[in-house]
């Protein structure tokens, strides 16, 4: 039996023309992606992209400027890694384009460590399994106050000794007095020895005087630098408070509301207890740092219509991740009739901070 079938004619020229789609390279990559996960990785626009905290330089709990060379000094979550030579000032500035930015102003040159220091850096908690063996991208805006060409490195390394680099350093260059966008993609090592990693951005090599400004710093997974992820101030502050909390400071107005009205108890004629709940659970049991200058950090204590303070010393503290207890000494020769009473306590002088930084 003969079977007859027909086949529609194909215009090869038309078919080829259809293949010439205006999709571009990125569009082609999206079409070739085999899974939704691949597509999401290509877009890189899913939520919670920025692994940095306070990448917008909005939260400055400690101070809004510093001239000290190393450690956590002003802007939250950003550590200064510098050498003792020369001098610089870091400060919070308001920019017409970005709002809050960090200004790094070198005032005295130091050429002793051009390949290492003068960095801002941020440890990223438990990032080991997120980044190892994967591409990561760092992006930020930079402005050079001068028109002289300046440069510095950007690198990702293990946070802890030894500071092994997870990928070769890359370098930014800036020579104009205007905002420039920089992005760098690193392919990180397959193995990361410690839990925490840190991002380092060198702000100057020590020899070029003048200011550099940095804004909207982002560190994200993938090969694509996506637009900066904005978070509200309240959310950013809460994220910062996991690592540092300014509990009391009678020297500035910002934390005044935390001075007043703690309820304590008189345990004995020499011991009064008061507990302060922390607004955010901290990363680890915090270290308490307190003022010693002048009268130091001390409490006012009131009970049974009498002033039984100010405290003459802090004998002990009981920090946990959620609260801090203080064991303070009331005024001398306190009558035993107060023992067992509740008391009202206010911070009278000084400041006290809780820190659980990496």
């Amino acid at each position, binding site marked *: 039996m003969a079977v007859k079938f027909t086949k529609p004619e194909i215009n090869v020229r038309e078919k080829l023309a259809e293949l010439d789609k205006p999709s571009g390279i990125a569009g082609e990559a999206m079409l070739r992606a085999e899974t939704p996960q691949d597509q999401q990785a290509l877009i890189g626009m899913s939520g919670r992209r920025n692994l940095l905290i306070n990448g917008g330089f909005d939260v400055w709990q400690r101070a809004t400027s510093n001239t000290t060379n190393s450690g956590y000094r002003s802007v939250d979550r950003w550590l200064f890694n510098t050498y003792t030579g020369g001098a610089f000032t870091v400060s919070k500035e308001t920019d017409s384009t970005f709002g809050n930015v960090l200004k790094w102003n070198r005032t005295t040159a130091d050429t002793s460590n051009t390949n290492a220091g003068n960095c801002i850096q941020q440890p990223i908690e438990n990032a080991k399994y997120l980044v190892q063996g994967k591409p990561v991208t760092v992006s930020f805006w930079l402005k050079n106050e001068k028109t002289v060409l300046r440069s510095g490195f950007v690198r990702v390394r293990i946070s802890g*000794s*030894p500071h092994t680099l997870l990928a070769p350093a890359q370098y930014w260059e800036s020579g104009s007095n205007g905002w420039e966008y920089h992005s760098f993609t690193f392919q990180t090592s397959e193995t990361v020895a410690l839990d925490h990693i840190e991002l380092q951005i060198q702000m100057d090599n020590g020899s070029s005087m003048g200011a550099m400004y940095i804004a909207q710093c982002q560190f994200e997974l993938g090969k694509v630098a996506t637009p900066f992820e904005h978070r509200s101030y309240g959310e950013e502050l809460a994220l910062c408070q996991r690592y540092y909390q300014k509990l009391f400071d009678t020297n500035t107005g910002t934390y005044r509301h935390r001075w007043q009205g703690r309820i304590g108890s008189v345990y004995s004629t020499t011991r009064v207890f008061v507990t302060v709940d922390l607004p955010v659970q901290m*990363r*680890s*049991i*915090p*270290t*308490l*740092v*307190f*003022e*010693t200058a002048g009268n130091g950090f001390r409490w006012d204590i009131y009970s049974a219509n009498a002033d039984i303070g100010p405290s003459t010393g*802090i*004998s*002990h*503290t*009981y*920090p946990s991740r959620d609260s801090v207890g203080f*064991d303070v000494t009331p005024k001398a020769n306190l009558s035993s009739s107060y023992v067992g009473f509740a008391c009202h306590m206010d911070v009278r002088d000084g400041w006290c901070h809780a*820190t*659980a*930084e*990496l």
Partner: protein
Amino acid sequence: MYTLIEDSMFNTKIIKTENMFIPLEAENTEYQKVLDDIIEQGADCFTGDIPTDLQTAADAKQFAQQVEAYKIAKARVAQYQLSIGVPESTQTISTGRQEWNEEAEEMQDVTETFVIPAIEPLEATVEETTYDFDTDTSTTSTVANPLIVKDNEERAAAQAIIDATPGPVKTHVDG
């Protein structure tokens, strides 16, 4: 200077400095600094004797640091020396297949042998040219190959770490 404050009523301990209370918490950064100071300064950093539990923690940290340093140093020394190079060698691996051997009258593993090419030693010296702008002259001199110099320095530093590593640490790593 650190002081350990003990509260027997609540059975708690905390380390006090002039302006800090530091919890005995492994995750706390300042506590790790206390241990580092004990390792480096011994009893000089403490008021009175170092409490036993802190000394134990410091010893454990130092041991872990020495283990890590010893492993890194061993790996560095195990790398070939640039001034000597590596002779040609062969490596035989099993392919995972078996074939019938007529002479032995049994199935035997099939192996493949690879030749790993030699790595030639670097030149011991290199020529270095310096140019004097004032006199408009250049001078060429022969100097030790800086790559070899650096390699030898790193090897020596690694060997020094190995030599200084306490026996128990070596035993822990080497078995």
